[in-house]
């Protein structure tokens, strides 16, 4: 028996709607943004909210609303890219270690323990700082420091599934490793991966924003929520909207995506129906 989309709690539905609309904003940015987010206008610096500029303008006279909308683009794209890379590394190493065991597993576990033993944020900053300044350094820095936890969860799932009777059954039917991995292990860890991926998108957004805030991520003048918060540092006492708008964006998106992860978890797991319960 599976839970259907319509049966989800309304909070989950709301979260999915929020996430989808942020993604929609990001995709449709050129059409919905009222101004060019990079258009500097000296006449209009540091304006408060008005009919012309709904959220006001920043220190260079750029329209804040347009920058928030375009910022969704950069931030979400980075978050998704980082999460996908993390997943790729984490899942492949997790499956390799969990399924094959032995020396492979021990080497990978050793690496995982090393990475998890280091302070994540400091490592991320250090890696981003030594890499040449381009947009990929952010992806590399976050991926390298966050795949370990991912692979550990995947590994334990793979070990659990490997011990299930149905895997032993198909093995004794004569299936090879490739078949078992493709038809048995992967489909059965897919729900876990899906949930982890969505949660990871949320944390990636936070990490990427943090790095951008420190000037180690997306470089200005790009419209990015982290960069925007960084730019607003000096002005936010008089112009709180400057920091609130991108901040709310980050909060809404990461909260939404976390709840979406929980919703996915409900949707993808197979529950025993009452018709089959031991009575």
């Amino acid at each position: 028996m599976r839970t259907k989309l319509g049966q989800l709690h309304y909070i989950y539905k709301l979260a999915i709607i929020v996430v989808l609309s942020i993604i929609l904003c990001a995709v449709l940015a050129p059409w919905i943004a009222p101004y060019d987010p990079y258009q500097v206008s000296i006449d209009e610096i540091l304006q408060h909210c008005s009919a012309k500029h709904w959220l006001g303008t920043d220190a260079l006279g750029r329209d804040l609303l347009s920058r928030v909308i375009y910022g969704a683009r950069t931030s979400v794209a980075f978050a998704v890219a980082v999460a996908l890379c993390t997943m790729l590394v984490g899942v492949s190493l997790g499956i390799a270690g969990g399924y094959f065991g032995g020396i492979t597993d021990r080497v990978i576990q050793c690496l995982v323990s090393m990475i998890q033993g280091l302070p994540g944020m400091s490592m991320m900053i250090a890696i981003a700082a030594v890499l040449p300044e381009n947009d990929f350094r952010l992806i590399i820095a976050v991926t390298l420091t966050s795949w370990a936890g991912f692979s550990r969860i995947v590994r334990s799932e793979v070990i659990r599934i490997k011990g299930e009777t149905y895997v032993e059954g198909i093995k004794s039917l004569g299936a090879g490793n490739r078949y078992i991995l493709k038809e048995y292990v992967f489909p059965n860890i897919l729900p876990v991966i899906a949930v982890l991926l969505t949660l990871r998108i949320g944390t990636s957004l936070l990490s990427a924003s943090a790095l951008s805030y420190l000037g180690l991520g997306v470089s200005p003048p790009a419209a990015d929520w982290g960069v925007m918060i960084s730019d607003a540092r000096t002005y936010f006492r008089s112009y709180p909207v400057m920091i609130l708008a991108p901040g709310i964006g980050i909060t809404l998106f990461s909260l939404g995506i976390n709840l979406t992860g929980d919703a996915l978890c409900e949707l993808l797991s197979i529950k025993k129906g009452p018709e089959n319960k031991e009575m």
Partner: protein
Amino acid sequence: MSVVGGMFRKMAILSVKHVCKSYKTGLIKKKTKIILQDITFDVQEGEVLGLTGASGSGKSTLIRCIMRLTPVDSGTIIMDGTDLLQLSPTDLRQSRKVMQMLFQNPASALNPRKTIRESLAEPILIHQLPEATLKEIPGILDMLQLKKDLLDRYPHQLSGGELQRICLGRLLLLRPRLLLLDEPTSMLDVSVQAQIIEIMRNIRKEYPITVLFVSHDLALLKAVCDRIGVMEQGKLLELQPVEELFQHPSEQYTRDLIRAFNDF
């Protein structure tokens, strides 16, 4: 085909010789736990051989060793002249065709994300059998006394008895010569157990598949087996024809076991 003097000659389909297995436990103080101790016996072509013993006597481990689902420390397991323990992974996969195993817990014996139809077709896919084998599935369902509409359901929608029969049917597509049963009915009700045993009997009428039947239920083994082996703490105490075992058990443990069964 040669007839050896017109006499019925019994052939060993599987011979297990001096199989030993132990586990090491403990992190600092290593302890060795012996699971199987010098097990030697033959399974004759066409017979039903039962293995019994208390829980933890190593009977399940033994057949898992024969299937090579768990490694063996020493000994040989010979089937048709080849030592199964020496086979490479590729040859082992080929050898699986002739030897199949049915597991104890039907509730987790099929991939929960595949329909029954997909699960049934798997042996054909794995061993690249001709497409025509797919057409055998309806016939097998009939033999298993299962309804056709089960095919498009998922495992969690079926009862334990139905699942165990599906698992059995899936193995039979490969036409194995040796079937290993690991407590196949201990999680099921007696009426369902009787049904599965009846099906097994019908199958054996059609073609004489050899069966190695592990169970702790002596009454069940008595009803279905030709010979029964008794295991205790990793040792095979005795292996006798059923009548002989129940009338003249040679070991004290066997006597205790039979008594525990008869007058409980």
